[in-house]
């Protein structure tokens, strides 16, 4: 699924809204998450997951081919941890030895 398909699906479920507005809602949500990460904030969406930023200090790397030392600059990279509910839903009934849910 692409962003455009996500918007399409939400627009169909909300016929009282303009397609353009649905598009703005989706864009706003992802932009807000990106902006939070740019401030170094964490974004926690219970049940879905949490976005955070990991910092990688500058280091001396090596060119694996030549062995030459290269300076690698400091970096900050986004990280996502799947939430408990989604993690469990991904494996519903798939886990071996899990008691079957019956009546």
């Amino acid at each position, binding site marked *: *699924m*692409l*962003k455009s398909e*996500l918007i399409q*699906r*939400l627009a169909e*479920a*909300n016929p009282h*809204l303009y397609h353009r*507005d649905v598009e*703005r*809602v*989706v864009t*706003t*949500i*992802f932009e*807000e*998450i*990106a902006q*939070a*990460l*740019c*401030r*170094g*904030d*964490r*974004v*926690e*969406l*219970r*049940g*879905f*997951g949490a*976005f955070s*930023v990991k*910092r990688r200090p500058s280091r001396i790397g090596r060119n694996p081919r030549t062995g030459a030392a290269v300076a690698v*600059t*400091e*970096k*900050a*990279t*986004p*990280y*996502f941890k*799947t939430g408990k509910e*989604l*993690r469990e*839903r*991904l*494996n*519903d009934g*798939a*886990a*071996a*030895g899990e008691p079957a849910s019956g009546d």
Partner: protein
Amino acid sequence: MTGRTITRAQLSEAVYQEVGLSRNESADFVEAVLNVLSNHLVKGEPVKISSFGTFLIRQKGGRMGRNPKTGQEVPISPRRVMVFRPSHVLKDQISRALTGQGKA
């Protein structure tokens, strides 16, 4: 770095401010977006959000793990995990904002 935690509340507030839906409808919408994403991922299909990143499902095989405290071997059953691969745009944006470095 402020170290704050953003939740659904701030996301719906942003939707309310930017798009002008009611507060209630904004909150419902944030939830709806997450639901559509989750339901799609649970089916095992990836979601690509341009200039943000890709959510995809990986199948992990079973293996023997070890309880690091007791040294006891424990079987880890095969499972599906979700991974988020940030786009270069997002990575560069964050790196630039927080370290003043990275590609422009």
